[in-house]
């Protein structure tokens, strides 16, 4: 038979077989670290961070205007890492005044409460994904739902707090409701955008191959909107975290947001700073976790590769 048709593809297999040295993971990690260390920009970044801490220390030492209540970075660090009074020693140099750090329970409780609230809210807001997918699939559903949706979206989530307290008489529910509202709109909107972003040619191809409407929903719309769904989840998580702080300040007990206000009232600056940085850090961690999930789910999105 003819030449081209039956000639088997050898390229992918052959390349995979030709790997002379098997690099272990540890070695790869070591090589990567070595490379990063020699990068000029890495050291510049470190310089920037160092300059920031120096500036902080200077601001404390030289009592810049308006910064009387600021503590030095070292003091804050000690507060964070040393045990509270009486736990280990009686030496005041080795103890934390307010006990807000890795040795006390308060910090962990705060983190736990905040994370628990956010998880609940985020889980509820994932309802937005099927709603968004349905809106993208059927024009009629979109017409009905989009108008009230867009009218309610600009209302800032925090302004829901008084109403939420009225609606849900319990302590925790208003805060969770608040974060759910905040995240829900972002998730739904992005899912809708995701469905809209699917190239119409895929719909045509699916129809050609004999798909029913439901098949198109399952095999084209859901996977095709996935990238935007993840973007929506990331944004939703960010907005929910954002609103969580506000909600806790106004209506909560325990929780990192509440802690910032509490520290402000008690003029406990280290607590304030620790709480602030923890909020930022946990927010970043959640984002990183979600991104890892995204990378696994969107394995088909090749960054490199020729485009047709």
């Amino acid at each position, binding site marked *: 038979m003819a030449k081209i048709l039956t000639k088997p*593809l050898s390229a992918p297999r052959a390349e995979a077989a030709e790997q002379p040295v098997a690099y272990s993971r540890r070695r790869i990690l070591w090589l990567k670290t070595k490379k990063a260390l020699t990068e000029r920009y890495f050291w510049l970044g470190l310089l920037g961070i160092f300059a920031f801490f120096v500036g902080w220390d200077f601001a404390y030492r030289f009592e810049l205007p308006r910064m009387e209540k600021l503590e030095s970075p070292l003091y804050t660090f000690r507060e964070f890492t040393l045990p509270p009074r009486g736990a280990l020693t009686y030496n005041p140099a080795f103890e934390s005044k307010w006990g807000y750090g890795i040795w006390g329970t308060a910090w962990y409780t705060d983190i736990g409460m905040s994370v628990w609230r956010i998880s609940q809210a985020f889980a509820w807001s994932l309802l937005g994904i099927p709603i968004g997918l349905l809106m993208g699939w059927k024009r009629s559903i979109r017409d009905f739902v989009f108008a009230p949706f867009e009218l309610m979206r600009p209302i800032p989530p925090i302004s829901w707090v008084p109403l939420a307290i009225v609606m849900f008489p319990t302590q925790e529910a208003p805060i969770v409701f608040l974060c759910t509202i905040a995240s829900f709109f972002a998730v739904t909107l992005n899912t809708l955008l995701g469905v809209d972003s699917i190239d119409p040619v895929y719909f045509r191809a699916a129809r050609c191959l004999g798909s029913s409407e439901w098949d198109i929903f399952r095999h084209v719309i859901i996977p095709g909107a996935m990238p935007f769904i993840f973007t929506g989840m990331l944004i939703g998580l960010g907005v929910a975290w954002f609103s969580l702080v506000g909600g806790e300040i106004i209506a909560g007990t325990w929780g990192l947001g509440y802690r910032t206000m509490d520290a402000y009232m008690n003029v406990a600056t280290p607590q304030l700073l620790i709480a602030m940085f923890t909020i930022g850090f946990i927010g970043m961690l959640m984002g990183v976790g979600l991104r890892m999930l995204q990378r696994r789910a969107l394995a088909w999105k090749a960054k490199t590769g020729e485009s047709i």
Partner: protein
Amino acid sequence: MEELIRFLGRVEIFKDCGRGTLEKIAGVCEEKRFGRGAIVYRTGDAPDCFYVLKQGAVSHPSVVGTRGSDDGLVRSPADLFGFAAVVEEMKRRVFTVECLEDTTVYAINGARLREILKMDPATGYAVMQRLAGLMAKAQGFVPARSGSLSIRHAGKIYDPEGIHVVAVEDCSFEVPAGGLCVVVGPSGCGKTTLLNTIAGFDNLTSGEVHLDGQLIAAPGRELKPGPDRIVVFQQGALFPWKTVLDNVTYGPIIQRKMKKKEAVAQALALMEKVGLAGIESQFPGEISSGMRRRVEIVRALVNDPKILLLDEPFRALDALTKSVMHEYLLELYDLSHKTIFFITHDLEEAIFLADLVVIMTTRPGRVKKLIAVDLPRPRTYRMLSSKRFLELKQQTIEGVHEEALKAFEAGERELA
């Protein structure tokens, strides 16, 4: 002659025939020689002769030889192949038969053999019986060719009450079943519009399109794209979130034609046959653009469509890959003999691939010229510099160039 009669006597099915019959059969025998790689007949042909192998070897998929030869290979002298020609009530088609070395065969005209056998009722009937028996054992016949396309006065106007853009105006031509039709024209001349109408993505505003005698497109008709006319798109429409194997098995599974295991086996077999083995578990984003085009064509073929619609599929490939893909497409065409409706803006590509070239004018798109290409198949790249090819090109290039100039001056962008 005497030798021939003795040789025919050795043929299994003729063993009971008397000398007189054998003489008559020898009379209608024709000796034919084929070189290595020559094609005796192609898939979908309805040969009127059947052949007795004198010497040589022939590849014949799904043959059950008279002496129990290897499946797919006819090596022994006095073996038969192509006896569908004889059994008249089963008008079956056959697969391509290619010669693997220098071969000599005796071609016997089926109709005449039937007459001869009828004249000798005693043994003739037995011979026919044996032939029918052999036919029943053979597997996998190609069904009769289908997919004849008929376009009659097709017209499409976009936004009739508003901007009123006439995309296509009064196009008429016919594509025979199993033919390769290529439509050439400048950008914006409405060829994609025509393809969309045939595929069922868009409606005509006037005229009709028939496929195998059935109306598939007319003004006001409900749009229903389906797997009997599958499109291979210009920009590529392999689902990027599915692996290559999932893409190829998508059609059969979703139409509930077969279970997953079956579909996977069939898809793997077809991919193996066409040389795409080894990439099943990769995503489209990880394979090269040429491979993607091939996978997309295979994805269409696996569904056994009546007509394959190709919308400038090789447009985005570089010229070298393109020439290889042309030969690839032609080999697939030889194998499956589906009706193909191909759109391009490249005249050489059109003449090289087609049986029928349709030249369209720039907007509004009308059929300017119909050219029947009589270059022999299988076509090779060497034909691109043959005399006949250049003659055909000469006939067509004036018209195409004129339209290209008009389109350029109008500065049209592509519609749809």
